[in-house]
């Protein structure tokens, strides 16, 4: 057991609790799957009693960063603000999830240095795939020149060098990606390792159980 979970309860017994949170920092192109994976991840964390807050890119821009544009400077300011809030949440035991594009490496690394308990998740999908998905219709507008400074089209995206997790959304389902993140959080000591993270039930196991059920008269 990782020491971060080891605390003494009121009776003086060794038990487990979540004393520290972390920031799960998604980065990836628009349409790569950040929000979709977040939707799958949140219940998995809450199920374990984690306190979770999501700072979704769109929501942040209509509240925390209202008025900011999409120049490099404004984008960096936006990401620094999200990082500031994530840091406050993280140090109070919350699992803070940032699901903004956050295209620039330098400011992501600034946040990593600030927060420390920082788990970077690169949500990887090719630009072609994201254009095909175009859930919000933004690529169509960007390609038509209606949106300026659009990441991947008219503004650069800098993928991380050493993210803690890479979710390849062209190859894995959102559920698989979310479980991959949970397993990494376990490895990093932010979650107590689970007996099972929703993995399967082997055919050999099924045969053993079937035999027992037959003996018990249920079959």
């Amino acid at each position: 057991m990782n020491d971060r979970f080891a605390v003494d309860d009121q009776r003086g017994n060794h038990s487990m609790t979540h004393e520290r949170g972390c920031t799960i920092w998604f980065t990836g192109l628009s349409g790569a799957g950040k929000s979709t994976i977040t939707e799958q991840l949140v219940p998995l964390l809450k199920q374990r009693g984690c306190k979770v807050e999501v700072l979704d890119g769109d929501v942040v821009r209509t509240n925390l960063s209202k008025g900011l544009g999409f120049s490099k400077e404004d984008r960096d300011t936006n990401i620094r603000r999200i990082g500031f809030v994530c840091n406050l949440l993280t140090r109070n035991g919350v699992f803070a999830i940032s699901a903004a594009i956050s295209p620039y490496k330098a400011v992501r690394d600034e946040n990593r240095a600030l927060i420390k308990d920082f788990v970077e998740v690169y949500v990887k999908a090719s630009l072609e795939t994201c254009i095909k998905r175009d859930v919000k219709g933004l690529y169509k507008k960007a390609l038509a020149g209606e949106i300026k400074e659009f990441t991947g089209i008219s503004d650069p995206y800098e993928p991380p060098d050493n993210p803690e997790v890479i979710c390849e959304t062209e190859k894995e389902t959102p559920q698989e990606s979310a479980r991959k993140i949970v397993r990494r959080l376990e490895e990093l000591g932010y979650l107590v390792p689970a007996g099972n993270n929703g993995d399967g039930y082997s055919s050999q196991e099924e045969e053993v159980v079937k035999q027992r059920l037959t003996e018990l008269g249920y079959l």
Partner: protein
Amino acid sequence: MIGNHRRKVLVVGLDCVPPELLFRQYRDELPHVRDLMARGLWGELESCHPPITVPAWSCMMASQDPGQLGIYGFRNRADYSYDKLSIATGNAVKVERVWDLLSRADKKVVVVGVPGTYPPRPVNGVLVSCFLTPGIESQYTHPAGLREEIAGVVGEYMVDVKGFRTEDKDWLLRQIYEMTEKRLRVVRHFLRTKPWDFFMFVEMGTDRIHHGFWKFSDPGHRGYEPGNRHEQAIRDYYRYLDRELGELLAMIDQDTVVLVVSDHGAKKMDGGICINEWLWQNGYLTLHTPPARPTAMDKCAVDWSRTRAWSEGGYYARLFLNVKGREPQGVIEPRDYERVRDELAAKIAAIPDHQGRPLGTQVYTPQALYRATNNIAPDLLIYFGDLSWRSVGTLGTGAIHTFDNDTGPDDANHAQQGILILHDPAQPGGGREIKGMSLYDVAPTILHLLGQTPPPHMIGKSIV
């Protein structure tokens, strides 16, 4: 008291305990049960349909019916082929149960042995999976390291008894006691060492002892022999459980509400109805080659192109129709589906006992029982003799009635009524009997006691 965050709930689950034994026959010999009843609320708890361990405990803890869960028994049709049945493990339960909801509400939970929890899913606390765990070499706990902790407490934990279908009753009895003793040692260990707001365990020994020993103690059972040496086996086990219950009650505080619940009841088994034999003899099921000796249905050469219906055996029967466009070699025209089903329901309900007397068989359509029919429901559910007779799937028996169970000795069947006792130190019930409770009421009651609002999809209601 709603919203009082100090309040805790301990649920003692006893699989298969019938009101006849706990509330009437043995009550005076069970001081702790008697005391909880005298100070709390109690009554019969109607099970789901079918009253079978799987799905009953999941229905209880999700407050949803088997059709809503899409789990109709231990095995369910995985598709419309004739032979693909999948075991309903915890993976089949797609909805949140009480401990999931409480985990998300930041309540600490301890869950031990509740059927429908293997493979174990993470919770905000600890979870030990159920008797459908293949074995203790499987990863049967959450968190993973808990498995070693359990081994340190009891050595080799027992998820269930082994070799249940045995005539060596002394051996079976020893196994039941060993399993229960180990589980309760783990329960006491967790009560001492884990933080919890909700603590639930299910003991399967009650089910195993009923099935294995009913005929020795019930003078109404055809196999009963007065003065047999196992006559007190079930009674003694209940007295043992009561002493164990007393130990648990001594470990909890005045903020803890205690519930004792069972998922269904039990009754003597009078015999078996060979349902596939009946379907064969009555022209609904056709075989390429008649079996020379009693043979399991899945080993028989069924001519599906000339078969209209077949059934699965078990404590109750699930009957399936072979429908054109649905099953691979379906023969019943969809427009004839209702007519054939009604015809079969009426004929099966009329099957008499071995002496020609009415059997009192109940036949249900899933649509009549459930609010939804997710996954693949049976076309009919049949309780022979109101579950006094089991369903036997074997073909080639030469007779409709049998007194030799096809899967080995078994003396008891399940019954619709289970039990509930609730004792809340803060609000004593004064020994009041509550009528009309259902298994679906348990989850809303627990949530209510812990200050949570039951989600609207729960079909039961809080009894407090």
